């Protein structure tokens, strides 16, 4: 229970937490499990990048603000116009989510101890359902669907032969592979022109 709460207090980025718990439950090595969780957290760096421009926080404040750089705070702050509104959005969303996230984690941990066998209640299906719900809005283009499909094949195909936790990391290779193929296809189409790689959403 302390470990569950520490995870929410210290890590505070949902997908990584679920990934870590799932990998450990499957008997993964702690560092392999942590690596998978870490890769899922990498996207937060890109939120931070955009937030640092819109929030324009003093350097001294940044280490404290960093823990709140997550999907939700980025979504709210970046939707605001003006620095003041963005800062308020970031602060309010960050504080509310941090408090509620950790309170509900505590309730969940207490509840799980009370329930006992969580499998009988179908709670082991909650993990993949959470991942699927996070994944669904990301599958906008063919490239994303290709990455997802390749990752599923790699993740399941390598499961019987590699140590626990490693297949997921190997499945992450689907991203650079598809990116490489995408780059080559575009280079083929725009042959002769200079490929600047500019094609932002």
């Amino acid at each position, binding site marked *: 229970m302390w470990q569950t709460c520490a*995870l929410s207090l210290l890590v*505070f980025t949902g997908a990584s937490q679920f990934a870590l718990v799932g990998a450990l439950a499957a008997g993964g090595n702690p560092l392999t499990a942590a690596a998978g969780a870490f890769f899922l957290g990498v996207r937060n*760096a890109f939120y931070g990048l955009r937030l640092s421009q819109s929030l324009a926080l003093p350097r001294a404040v940044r280490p404290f603000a960093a*823990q709140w750089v997550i999907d939700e705070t980025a979504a709210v702050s970046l939707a605001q116009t003006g620095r003041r509104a963005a800062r308020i959005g970031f602060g309010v969303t960050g504080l509310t989510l941090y408090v509620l996230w950790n309170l509900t984690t505590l309730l969940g941990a207490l509840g799980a101890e009370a329930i006992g066998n969580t499998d009988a209640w179908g709670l082991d*299906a*909650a993990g*993949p359902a959470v991942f699927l*719900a996070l994944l669904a809005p990301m599958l906008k283009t063919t490239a994303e669907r290709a990455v997802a499909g390749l990752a599923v094949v790699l993740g399941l195909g390598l499961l019987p032969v590699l140590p626990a936790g490693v297949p997921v990391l190997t499945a992450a290779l689907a991203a650079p592979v598809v990116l490489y193929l995408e780059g080559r296809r575009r280079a083929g189409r725009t042959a002769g022109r200079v490929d600047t790689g500019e094609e*932002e959403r």
Partner: protein
Amino acid sequence: MNTWIAIGATALGCYAVKLAGLLVPAGLLERPRVRRFAALLPVALLAALTAQQTFADGHALVLDARAAGLAAALVALILRAPFLLVVAAAVVVTAGVRALGG
């Protein structure tokens, strides 16, 4: 103890990338390729995790009540149900199938 190591490593790593985004000069991360890669990485990880947590039992691939639960979640997602309802659908259907002996 192992669990604490994993928690510590994850906490440090995740905090470091959050902070890096706020501190690193914009030029490095603004390159389209880097951004594209960062967008695709979670797609790969989430897809693999979803599949494994549904069909894996240790090192073996199995088809059990969790698959029915995930199918229910998928239907809920297609119907644009809110996040909690999606998860609830998976849990309820999985428990139901198990209770029926699936």
